[in-house]
């Protein structure tokens, strides 16, 4: 498999979160604003906080959500993109072909 560049998503320094019974509440202290993640998105966040390997995340999502590999990766990319739009995460692109 070859990779053409990569993107690095980083959770902001001012971001705090708490895991509640059926949701994850994320507070961006810089704004300040709160975002509530539920369902699959909350699950992804919870796994993300303990494993930051994209492949492992995708594999977990395949099993947890009964998705195919491409669908799991697509969903992860979409979620990360949404979090970036919300300001919870930032995205830096770069990296050589390799």
């Amino acid at each position, binding site marked *: 498999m070859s990779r053409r560049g990569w993107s690095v998503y980083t959770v902001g320094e001012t971001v705090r979160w708490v895991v509640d019974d059926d949701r994850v509440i994320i507070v961006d202290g810089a704004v300040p604003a709160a975002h509530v993640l539920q369902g699959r998105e909350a699950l992804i966040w919870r796994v*993300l906080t303990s494993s*930051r390997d994209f492949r492992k995340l995708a594999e977990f999502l395949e099993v947890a959500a009964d998705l195919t590999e491409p669908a799991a990766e697509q969903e992860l990319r979409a979620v990360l993109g949404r979090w970036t739009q919300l300001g919870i995460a930032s995205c830096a692109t770069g990296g050589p072909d390799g």
Partner: protein
Amino acid sequence: MANLIVSTVCPMRCSFCFAGEQRAKTGRGSATYLSLEEFDRRLAFLDRSGIGEVRLIGGEPTLHPRFPELIGRARGRRIVVFTNGLIPERALACLESLPESECTVLVNMNATRQPDGPGAAETRHRSAVVHRLGGRAKLGFTIFRVDFDLDPLFELVAESGAQRGIRLGLAQPILGGGNEYLHPKQYPAVGRRIVDFAKRGAPAGISLELDCGFVPCMFSDADIEILSSAGTDLGWRCNPVLDVGLDGTVSHCFPLAGSVDTRLTSDLGAAELRSRLAASTHPYRLAGIYRRCSRCPLKQRGECTGGCLAATMRRFRHRTIRVAVPRSATGTRQENAQT
């Protein structure tokens, strides 16, 4: 409501004290007592805020070397003094001179220098002060352990003529840590004990008043009925208190001092300051002290704030998280395994 810190000095070493931020400023080149000029500015702030009550806190406010003058300048308003109860004679005589209708002295009955709780000498001194203050005295108690005892307070109220409402506070955590506090998982056990004491105090006409941070789910529905019947002042509150420090810093409350602050200005009133503080903490209010708070109908209806904000904010975590994502990968794992 706004509390005016007039002293950062206090000889007590209560394990549950959440005034650490203020006491930490003592002796580090910072003022330890509010000047009379600054006190006048505080009174002007209360006036433009429409607040007719002057609430003096510390440290120990009665240790202020010009305490009688502070009281003199505050006359004409209702005066409330929060004290550890070991009041110097000059300050005590000054308070005794005030009509009971104009003054309440809230005496913290478990303030202490001792690691194991108030000693006999402290208890005697405090009791003597309460006797002298009579109807001006309101007894307060900070619950920081499940096995607390209010019977001595019931006896003192009966003997001294102190106000028949006892104010109960839960020991809340300083956001940055450093004090002994009651963990929310202990709340139900504390709730049962409060109900027991409420039932015991009711026949003597003694009621309990719940300060901020209490939550309805620490009591059963039946217990809440009992508390109401016993005249308990129930409230599930947590709001910006406005603790105005010696240097003009205005804190949301002591547990959040140093973390959620704003500044006293010459034009803004209490309502505006409260709005600023509430706005900065509003996102955290989606959560509460328990994992279930965010889906609780009482909280969603605004009937409960979700408990102490400092305890809630302590639940939030932060860690640097970075995920490297391939922008475009060619082939699935299965296809790649076959190549």
